[in-house]
């Protein structure tokens, strides 16, 4: 995207030019430039939450849309995600201090037998960017670890990810166990991963299948809002 401004000095750009430039840098996976942009905006008195949403999340949304539309591919998305992660590394402690809005809490993990975590990590990052607290259980997560985390963290959402057709059925094992224990309805269950689809999500009893990280964020927001409204009404 930005290839003509090799000697661009970010600190000399006004905010209205710096932010779109950061979106370009994020798109191009330029980690150092994104970090520099975050630091400049903070120095200029932007709140961490505003930097996160307007500079990083907005930029990553463009990346996500272009991935969905087949314009960008996984390597480019990973580079952009690494750049965003570096920017978020600066913002995260500040967000806690400055009382950024909290959307809810999610426990997430790649299911038992599966060590693929690229998609899960993207979802975790975008959920954090959207204001969710995320407890990431990592890879190869068995039902006992999911249950222990749900009990300890009391999240709004359980997220499960799988890349393999051989491991995705394990999601049903987890959901069935929740049902057996009578706690299925205590959580919003979102599932995702390359071989999954909506039909599979419905068949195993998840609340929703999420095609990508952006959809996961929007789905999580909608379900949390619905749950909140039901609680208020009930």
């Amino acid at each position, binding site marked *: 995207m930005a290839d003509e401004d090799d000697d661009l000095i970010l600190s000399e750009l006004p905010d209205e030019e710096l932010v779109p430039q950061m979106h370009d840098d994020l798109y191009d996976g330029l980690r150092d430039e994104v970090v520099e942009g975050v630091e400049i905006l903070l120095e200029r008195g932007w709140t961490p939450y505003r930097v996160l949403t307007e500079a990083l999340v907005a930029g990553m949304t463009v990346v996500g849309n272009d991935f969905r539309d087949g314009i960008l591919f996984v*390597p480019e998305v*990973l*580079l952009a995600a690494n750049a965003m992660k570096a920017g978020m590394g600066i913002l995260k402690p500040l967000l806690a201090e400055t009382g950024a809005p909290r959307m809810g809490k999610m426990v997430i993990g790649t299911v038992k*037998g599966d060590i*693929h*975590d690229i998609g899960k990590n993207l979802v975790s990052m975008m959920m954090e960017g959207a204001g969710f607290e995320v407890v990431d259980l990592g890879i190869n997560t068995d039902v006992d670890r999911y249950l222990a985390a749900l009990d300890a963290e009391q999240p709004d959402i359980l997220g499960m990810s799988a890349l393999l*057709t051989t491991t995705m059925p394990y999601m049903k094992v987890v959901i069935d166990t929740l049902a057996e224990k009578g706690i299925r309805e205590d959580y919003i269950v979102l599932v995702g991963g390359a071989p999954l689809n909506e039909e*599979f999500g419905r068949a195993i009893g998840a609340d929703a299948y999420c095609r990508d990280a952006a959809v996961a964020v929007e789905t999580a927001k909608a379900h949390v809002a619905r749950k909140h409204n039901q609680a208020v009404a009930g």
Partner: protein
Amino acid sequence: MTAPDDRALTEAGLAPGGRGRVLVIACGALAHEILALKRANGWNHLDLACLPAIWHNHPERIAPGLREAVGRHRAGYGTILVAYADCGTGGALARTCAELGVEMIEGPHCYAFFDGLDAFAARAEDELTAFYLTDFLARQFDAFVWRPLGLDRHPDLIEAYFGNYDRLVYLAQTEDPALDARARDCAARLGLAYERRPTGYGDLARFLAARA
């Protein structure tokens, strides 16, 4: 039949020779192995057609591609066999084969049927962190792994893709020191420990022998 070119097998597959009463429709990554079995066993009644091996990276294309191939070739053969396992299709290939009345190989993928389904399943937990290559994939590592993952342009992404793996297991169909060296090099490029496991043709040979 002369040995087909790996690049053609990857991108285009292989057209059948047009002779024989049994047609095997296979993944292009199995062409050399099936032709070797045909030669070794004198299966002159067996013909081979291959779908593009690169569909390994696009499993959603396999079932529709197979349906089209069976439709195209059915009239010319008494029997059609499908040399695929599930191969990431999530059961779609099995459903398609059942609908078309053709037999396919059991198991999740070619790693499992080369190794032998039972042996592979028994090792599954211990080898959760293993990345597999076969003879074909060792030869075509750049086309199937390195370039599609963007590692030719961004080798720093190796950690993101392979950080949870600890070893590369080369399931060797043949005794070939050059391929062994190549697979070892693939492991080194990915920063993984290396193991070579001779499998021969495993359940592929048993599947064909029982039906050919």
